C-alpha cells in the first residue's frame, strides 16, 4: 500500500480577513474610508494542520465550538480554499457536512435529486437512474413530483441524506449534526453511515458524542483554536479532551468572543 493517501493536508492554515466594523456594502466602505477607519482583523480559523487519512481509516475530530472543526471539514471538502499550505484529496468525495444546500425549493423532488446529485459531482444520467431507489430509501416515493417547498424539514433531511449517501466514495466526511428526523430514521441513517465507513473510504468524522466517536474511530485529533493539540488513539484523545473540558467549562466560550 504505497499509494498516496486519499486525504493529505500539509501545513494547512485558513485566515479570514474581517474588517473591524464589517463594512458589508460599498456605501459603508466609502464612509469608513473617508473616516480613515478601515481596519482589518485577521481571524485565524486553522493553523499548521498536517494530516494524512488513509483508506479504511476513520479519523474522529473533537473540539469545542469555534475550534475549527467545521472549517476543517470544508477545507478538506474543497469548499473553502486554504490560505496557507496545501490540501490534496484523491477520489470521489461524499461530504455530509451541511446537507441540502443544493436544493431548489421550486423544483420537484425528482428534479432536485438530479440537481443535488449533479452538484455533488455525479453524472446527471446516473442520478436519473437512481431516482426511484433514492426516493424509496427516503420514503418519499409518493412526493416525487411535488415541489419540495412543501416538504417538512424532516422530509428534506431524509432526501438530502439519501442523495448524499447514495454512493461509494473514496473520501467520506461526516458531521454528526445529522442526527435529524425521528428515531427510526436516525437508526437507519446511522446504519447506512457505518456501512459507508466500512466500505474502505478514508473517513473524517466530527462528533460531540465522545464515547460513540471513540468506538467508531480508528484515530482521533483534538482541535483547539485551529491547532491540532492531540493526535492518536481515539480513547486517549477523547479522554484528554473530556478531562480538559471538565476542568475549564468556560474555556470554549472565550474562544469565540476573543
Amino acid at each position, binding site marked *: 500500500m504505497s499509494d498516496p493517501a486519499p486525504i493529505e493536508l500539509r501545513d494547512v492554515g*485558513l*485566515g*479570514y*480577513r474581517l474588517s473591524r466594523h464589517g463594512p*458589508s*456594502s*460599498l*456605501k459603508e*466602505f466609502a464612509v469608513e474610508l473617508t473616516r480613515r477607519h478601515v481596519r482589518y482583523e485577521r481571524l485565524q480559523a486553522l493553523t499548521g494542520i498536517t494530516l494524512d487519512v488513509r483508506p479504511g481509516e476513520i479519523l474522529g475530530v473533537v473540539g469545542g465550538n469555534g475550534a475549527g472543526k467545521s472549517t476543517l471539514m*470544508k*477545507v478538506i*471538502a*474543497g*469548499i*473553502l*480554499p*486554504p*490560505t496557507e*499550505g*496545501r*490540501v*490534496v*484529496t*484523491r*477520489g*470521489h*468525495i461524499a*461530504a455530509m*457536512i*451541511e446537507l441540502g*444546500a*443544493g436544493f*431548489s425549493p*421550486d*423544483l420537484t423532488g425528482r*428534479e432536485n435529486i*438530479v*440537481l443535488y446529485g*449533479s*452538484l*455533488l*459531482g455525479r*453524472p*446527471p*444520467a446516473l442520478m436519473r437512474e437512481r431516482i426511484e431507489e433514492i426516493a424509496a430509501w427516503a420514503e418519499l416515493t409518493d412526493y416525487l413530483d411535488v415541489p419540495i417547498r412543501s416538504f417538512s424539514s424532516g422530509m428534506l433531511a431524509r432526501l438530502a441524506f439519501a442523495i448524499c449517501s447514495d454512493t461509494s466514495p*473514496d473520501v467520506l466526511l461526516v458531521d454528526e449534526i445529522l442526527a435529524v428526523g425521528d428515531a427510526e430514521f436516525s437508526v437507519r441513517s446511522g446504519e447506512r453511515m457505518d456501512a459507508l465507513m466500512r466500505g474502505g473510504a478514508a473517513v473524517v468524522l466530527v462528533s460531540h458524542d465522545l464515547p460513540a466517536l471513540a468506538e467508531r474511530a480508528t484515530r482521533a485529533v483534538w482541535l483547539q483554536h485551529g491547532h491540532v493539540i492531540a493526535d492518536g488513539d481515539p480513547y486517549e484523545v477523547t479522554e484528554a479532551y473530556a478531562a480538559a473540558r471538565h476542568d475549564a467549562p468556560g474555556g470554549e466560550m472565550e474562544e469565540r468572543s476573543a
Partner: protein
Amino acid sequence: MSTPIYDSAAPSPSIPQDVVATWRSRSLLRVLVARDLTVRYKRSVIGVWWTLLNPVLETAVLWMVFSQVFRFAVPGVPYVVFVLSGILLFNCFRQTILGVSGSMFLHRDLLSKVRVAPGMLSLSTAGANAITFGFTLVPLALVMAIAGVAPNPWCPLAVPLVALLIGFALGVGLALAPIVVRFPDMVDLLAISVTMIGYLAPVFYPPEIVPEQFQFVEKLNPIYHFVMLFRDVLYGDGAGDPLSWLAVVLSAGAALLLGHAVHNALRRGAFTVL
C-alpha cells in the same frame, strides 16, 4: 471512471483548461440551465409569455412617446420595429451582465456548502439568458411581419452576434461576481451604469441625432456596434459594417480574457466572506 483529484495548490486553470473542464461538465451545466429556466418561468407557458410582456409594453410606451409625441422617424423601417429590436437586444445584455455579476452572491449558500466552480453558475445564468432571448424573437418576428418589414437574408448572423453579446456580458460579469460577494450593493451601481450605457447607445433613438462631432464617442460604446449590427442583419442590406464586427469580436474577446483573469484572481478571496 478516472479518479478526480482536488489540489488546493493547483494553479488557476487557463482558459483552454476551463473550456475543456466546462465541456466535461456540460451535463451539469444543462441541469443548472434547466433549473434556472424552470425557476424563472415556474414551469408555465404563461410564465414565458409574462417575461415577454415587459419588452412589449416598454416598446409600446416608447413608441407612443417618441413616434407619436416627438414625431421621431427612423430611416427605412417603422419606428416600432426599430425600437423593439434595440430593446430586446439591450435587455439581453442587461439581464446577462446583472445576472452573472450577482450569480456568486445569489448562490452564496450553495457555494459555501457544496464544492462547485462558481464559473459554472455564471455560465448557467448566461445560458438561460441566451434561451430566453430566443423566446423574445417570437414577438419581434410578429411585429416585423405585421409592419411588413422583410427580413434580411443575412439574419442568421444574429446568432453569432448574440453569442458575442452574451460573451461580452459574461466576461464583465465574471470579473464583477467576486466583488459583488464582498459588496452586494455594487449591483445597484452596475444597474445604473448599464442603464447609462443603454442611453448612450442608439437603442431607442437613431444614431444620427447625435451631433457629428460627438459621433466618435458614441462609437466607443461596444453596445453601439452590437445594436447597429443586430438591426443590419435583421432588416438591413448586407452583413453589416465589417468595422462593427471587428469591434464586437474584440470587445467580447477582451471581456472574456480579462473577466476570466480577474475572476480567478479574486475568486479565492471571495470565499472567505461567503
